[in-house]
């Protein structure tokens, strides 16, 4: 398979520290278990297990759990950080325990664990997550719906799979990504992208975004969400693989305001500043374009019709060719007659979007969106930021799942690691939702703050009716208000994968 995952660098900001712990093992969630399953469905969860003792402990394992809870060792490899079964941990060492929940053996559900013991065969020294982060899954009787629309939010099968390549690894960035497959049976979702149509696909990608936003990971330079930067690489520069954002919480009124902790950490259970800084939690997460690439694979698997997987490097994903020759080329600057001035990266995400919301169907012979108002971009054909795009305009022409690419040196310039003045440095996803309290809204409490240069709450503070995007920067993947500041003023272009 052609390797199309590259290191990508998006945006960022600062630092801090504190800590202490007393359980034998800290068992903290990386991917939380499903809150409900229909009997017969398979659930899964990933927890980081850290040895807090000053001793190397062998034969650690899952214990004292019902028979329906087992360890999934399918992701164990020299490249991944998953625990074998049983496993050993050095003092302070950690690994990821992936557990599978066979709901048919769990009665009405499960509300404890996973319990990790030394030893697995003689469970004397055992720990489990703090109660808010323990497995809390309700099992209901009934038949598993087989239609696509009932399974828009169903990622059960995807979550049982291995995301981490066992053979390809880049220091800092971690193992390369393996896109999961869609569920082949009970329910069979493999044909949903074609049979259930665009509406299903759009809802599916937004559901995938919601799932990963709920995991509260950081912004890191990683390919996958289940890889933590090793201790030896935590001094990585902001432009390097393994870097994770050490930003302080800028959310006014939040528990850890002004401290180094995720903005929406509750202070309950594992969601403490200590765990964020000292127990690896801030060292999980992906950057902006690895997130978008990962998400599309998570939602649709490998899908040639949609061009998935697409590149993970921000500017390549945007369409600029490999290398630096097109770092200053934006959609409206293309010249169909000059091959070097065509955004022709074969691993770009979908098609460029025109100003009227249509797409350019022929990326190798660009139409320049003639008759459609040109490409949807803040940059004109001379490479000048001229358009004052408004959120209202965007809401009229964008579709859920559209990817908006941000230039590094627009009117609201962002850190630009490669030094090129208009290199694409960030990508966000239009989710087609507004802040509010309705079923199709996003509660304002779930909207992350912005960092510089849009850090003033007067700019981003969520108000009912505000349009939202999802992106990974600052402290990770979150919903954010689509502001003109930074996002629209610096809009390089838009690409549509679902069409």
């Amino acid at each position, binding site marked *: 398979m052609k390797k199309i995952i590259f290191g990508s660098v998006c945006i960022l900001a600062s630092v801090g520290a504190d800590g202490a712990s007393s359980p034998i093992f800290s068992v903290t969630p990386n991917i939380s278990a499903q809150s409900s399953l229909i009997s017969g469905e398979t659930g899964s969860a990933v927890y980081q297990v850290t040895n807090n003792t000053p001793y190397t402990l062998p034969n650690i394992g899952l214990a004292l759990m019902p028979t329906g809870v087992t360890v999934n060792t399918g992701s164990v490899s020299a490249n991944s950080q998953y625990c074998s079964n049983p496993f050993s941990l050095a003092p302070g060492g950690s690994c990821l325990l992936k557990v599978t929940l066979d709901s048919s053996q769990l009665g009405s559900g499960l509300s404890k664990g996973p319990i990790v013991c030394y030893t697995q065969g003689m469970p004397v*020294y055992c720990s489990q997550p703090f109660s808010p982060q323990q497995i809390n899954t309700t099992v209901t009787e009934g038949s598993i719906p087989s239609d696509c629309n009932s399974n828009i939010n169903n990622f059960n099968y995807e979550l049982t799979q291995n995301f981490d390549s066992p053979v390809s690894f880049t220091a800092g960035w971690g193992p390369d990504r393996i896109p999961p497959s869609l569920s082949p049976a009970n329910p069979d979702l493999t044909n949903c992208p074609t049979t259930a149509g665009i509406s299903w696909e759009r809802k599916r990608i937004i559901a995938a975004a919601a799932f990963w936003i709920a995991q509260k990971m950081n912004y890191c330079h990683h390919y996958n969400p289940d890889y933590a930067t090793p201790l030896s690489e935590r001094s990585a520069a902001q432009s390097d693989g393994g870097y994770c954002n050490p930003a302080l919480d800028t959310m006014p009124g939040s528990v850890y305001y002004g401290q180094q902790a995720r903005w929406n950490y509750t202070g309950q259970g594992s969601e403490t500043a200590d765990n964020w800084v000292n127990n690896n939690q801030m060292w999980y997460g992906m950057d902006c374009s690895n997130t978008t690439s990962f998400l599309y694979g998570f939602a649709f698997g490998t899908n040639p019709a949609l061009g998935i997987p697409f590149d993970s490097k921000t500017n390549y994903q945007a369409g600029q060719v490999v290398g630096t020759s097109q770092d200053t080329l934006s959609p409206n600057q293309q010249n169909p007659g000059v091959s070097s001035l065509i955004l022709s990266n074969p691993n770009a995400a979908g098609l460029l979007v025109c100003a009227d919301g249509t797409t350019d169907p022929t990326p190798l012979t660009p139409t320049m969106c003639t008759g459609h108002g040109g490409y949807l971009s803040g940059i004109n054909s001379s490479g000048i930021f001229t358009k004052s795009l408004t959120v209202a305009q965007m809401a009229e022409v964008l579709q859920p799942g559209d990817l908006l690419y941000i230039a590094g040196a627009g009117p609201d310039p962002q850190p630009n690691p490669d030094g090129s003045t208009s290199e694409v440095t960030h990508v966000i996803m239009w989710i087609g939702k507004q802040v509010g309290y309705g079923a199709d809204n996003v509660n304002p409490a779930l909207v992350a703050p912005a960092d510089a240069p849009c850090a003033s709450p007067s700019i981003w503070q969520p108000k009912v009716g505000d349009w939202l995007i999802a992106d990974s920067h600052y402290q990770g993947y979150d919903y954010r208000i689509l502001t003109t500041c930074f996002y629209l003023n610096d809009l390089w272009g838009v690409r549509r994968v679902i069409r």
Partner: protein
Amino acid sequence: MKKYIRLFFSLLIFVLFPHLASAALRPVAVLSAGADILSTHNHQYITLIAPFQNEYVGSHQSVDFVGGLFLGFEKSLSEKLSAQLGVSYYQNAGWQSSGMIYQFSDPNMGNLNYQYNIVSRRVLLETKILGTFQKAYHPFVSLGVGEAFNTAQQYDETPASSTGVPMSPGFADRTTHSLAYFLGFGLEKDMSQHIRLGALYRYAYSGRSELGMIPGQDSNQTLKNRLFYASEILLQLTYLG
């Protein structure tokens, strides 16, 4: 110590028995009921999985019910002195021993609390020397020695936080037997020709107790209460035939 106490009671029986045998004996039955107060102070290190040790720190005072029955004979030794000799059985409802477990003996890993019950059943050879004043009042001292059968049971651990998980299974129940004795004093009053009511304080030694081990344990160490002493305050109803 055990040897000397048993020797003392052997001599006592040897001295009293001729008197008891040479005069009229009144059969005696005594029902006792009251409270016993046990203070336990445990500090133990136990290896469950070698080479690691847990530190168990218990400091607990518990009060529970104790009751018993004495059957024997009473013999008047003089106008103002009489003696009883017989056998008795006492049992408590169950002392609770509890404390904190520091896993790996690490003061930062006090993740669990423990508790278990100790039921002590004692079979004793018992004697009571009674005086008489104002005809109806009988101050007395009493002594007993015999065997205690102490059952440590129902071991349970509770997490100090939601991250803690009790060891499973816990220490097994175990009954141990050892020397037991008491020394007491009190006062009885004649309520009728056959009935006396009394009260006494006694200091009782019930030997030791220990829990069983857990399956597969790497040592034979277990939680113990050595030399546990209790203060007992009892009411007694005596029937004299």
